[in-house]
């Protein structure tokens, strides 16, 4: 490194270089250098790194002007109109809703989470892979405990792999595809700037629109994407909201299926979960220390997406999903195995029955809650079975759906929270979600009972 470069880094306050110079030049000489840096900084009212950057920018402009020629810009009429439509709020907001409806709900939700998942799960896993694995394990493995680890209802292959490959992968794959298309068109920053004001109310900036939308696909993946947020405070708030009040596609599917024949119940569920989202965000933004979020973003021009770009990005993300998220699902089924073999689950189940009774549900619902933690949709499916067996009234069904949605996210998401935010934050967020879930359930149960039951 040239001396000049070292000098600039010293002036910019680069810690590594300061440490290096102190080490190589000795304390006395370093003190001299430090004094000079300080004196220089005092002569400017802005950080030296900024002053240097500005000067550099100025020089770059001079060079750029010398060597470039600007051709008169030509803007297509269509692009101009599209540009206007995606930025002007009265047209941009309906467009946003259309994009979310068709892109997310119809394509990812109905086609991905419905059609493709049905095929992979019912045809491929349930009819081909699982029976084969079960048969293989039954033939070659003597120990019943080991057999259960690999196969059976909660096995690493039959549950962990099936869950991550047949259910979550198609959903996130579709989602990644849609997301890459939107990304390639340059629409996402517009989405972010349109929603910035709304997100500011809950302590986030418009950038959070990306992880929050992803959360409706897979909360685990969304929790990881909170990395893109600027400050630790924003990342914490986003992680909390994803854990608490953003139902993932798997859960959403079952809850919609369960409540769709009861529109009032569905509305009530959506209203309560939505209110919990806003209140929790608002509360967190009030009580968490740290600076308020700022929003800035480059807004690229709109472009026609290039298929090769879209595919490359989708594939890269799916690869990432395989490497980072799938092990968490496989790990989850191993945890279920340990819980079942050691009898720990029976204990937890007994403990859970207390709050479950408190919110006015039959004790059997505790099972749905516990397994809901390992498979978010499984919890909802457990309730579905209870409802079909006539064990739940409509009011109880709403209370259960709300409580389950707000309840601690699935074990994979919890592991990702732990990994991204650290154990302290992960446990604190889980505790908040648990408390909010049951308190809300309790209150809702009281209100519904008071107003005469069925919504």
């Amino acid at each position, binding site marked *: 490194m040239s*001396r*000049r470069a*070292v*000098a*600039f880094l*010293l*002036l910019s306050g680069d810690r590594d270089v300061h440490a290096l*110079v102190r080490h190589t*030049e000795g304390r006395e*000489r370093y003190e*001299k*250098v430090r004094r*000079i*840096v300080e004196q*220089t900084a005092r*002569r*400017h*009212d*802005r*950080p030296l*790194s*900024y*002053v*240097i*950057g*500005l*000067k*550099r*920018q*100025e*020089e770059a402009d001079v060079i750029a002007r010398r060597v470039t020629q600007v051709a008169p810009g030509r803007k297509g009429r269509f692009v*101009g*109109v599209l*540009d*206007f439509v995606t*930025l*002007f*709020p009265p047209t941009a907001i309906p467009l946003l809703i259309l994009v979310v409806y068709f892109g997310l709900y119809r394509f990812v939700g109905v086609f991905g989470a419905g059609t493709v998942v049905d095929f992979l799960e019912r045809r491929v896993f349930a009819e081909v892979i699982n029976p084969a694995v079960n048969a293989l394990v039954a033939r070659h493995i003597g120990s019943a405990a080991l057999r259960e680890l690999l196969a059976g209802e909660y096995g690493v292959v039959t549950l962990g792999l099936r869950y991550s490959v047949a259910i979550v992968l198609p959903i996130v794959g579709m989602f990644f595809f849609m997301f890459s298309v939107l990304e390639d068109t340059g629409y996402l*920053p517009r989405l*972010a*700037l*349109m929603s*910035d*004001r709304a997100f*500011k109310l809950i302590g986030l*900036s*418009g950038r959070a629109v990306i992880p929050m939308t992803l959360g409706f696909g897979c909360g685990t993946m969304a929790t990881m994407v909170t990395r893109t947020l600027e400050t630790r405070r924003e990342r914490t708030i986003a992680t909390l909201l994803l854990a608490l009040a953003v139902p993932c596609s798997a859960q959403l599917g079952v809850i919609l299926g369960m409540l769709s024949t009861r529109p009032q119940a569905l509305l009530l569920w959506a209203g309560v979960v939505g209110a919990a989202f806003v209140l929790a965000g608002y509360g967190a933004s009030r009580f968490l220390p740290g600076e*308020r979020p*700022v*929003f*800035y*973003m*480059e*807004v*690229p*021009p709109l472009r026609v997406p290039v298929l090769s770009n879209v595919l490359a990005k989708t594939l890269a993300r799916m690869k990432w999903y395989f490497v980072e998220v799938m092990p968490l699902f496989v790990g989850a089924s191993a945890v279920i195995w340990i819980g079942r073999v050691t009898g720990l689950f029976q204990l937890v189940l007994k403990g859970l029955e207390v709050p479950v009774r408190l919110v006015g549900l039959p004790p059997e619902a505790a099972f749905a809650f516990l397994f809901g933690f390992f498979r978010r949709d499984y919890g909802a499916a457990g309730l579905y079975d209870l409802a079909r067996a006539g064990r739940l009234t409509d009011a109880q069904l709403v209370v259960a759906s709300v409580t389950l949605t707000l309840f601690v996210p699935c074990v994979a998401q919890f592991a990702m929270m732990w990994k991204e935010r650290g154990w302290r934050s992960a446990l604190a967020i889980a505790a908040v979600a648990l408390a909010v879930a049951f308190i809300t359930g309790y209150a809702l149960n009281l209100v519904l009972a008071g107003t005469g039951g069925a919504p």
Partner: protein
Amino acid sequence: MTGTMTSTVAGTVAGTVAGTAAGTAAGTRIFRARRGTISGERSMPTCRLAALRAGERGRVVRVTSASAPLLQKLLAMAIVPGSEIRVDLAFPAFVFEVGNTRVAVDRAIAQQIEVERIGRVSRCCTPRAITGDPRADGRRGGTNEPSL
């Protein structure tokens, strides 16, 4: 754009560091900053970017933020003293063109960018002159031209 030069600041340190290291002074003249100011900043009637409406143009005079990370980010997007900007949208966020890029910032940042207006407001009905936030005026202090 060119400020007057009173000292070659980096030269001093670069020279000193070089001197400490091996005894040669490598004076550099990358810096030409007037004491306490940054070239491009000048004392003319200015207002905040947040006061501009869609369709208006201005020249950045100064970024008043004290936050080094924010200053660096704005610098990276070429929002520096001297850059010309044109506001496309004032609500829900400030969207403006600077050079060949288009940038969106929130109101808090737009309050920290001092600009001088260029020309008169064009109030024609091009897609550029989209909504000015009606609340944008009058809420800020320190502007010399509250409205045009």
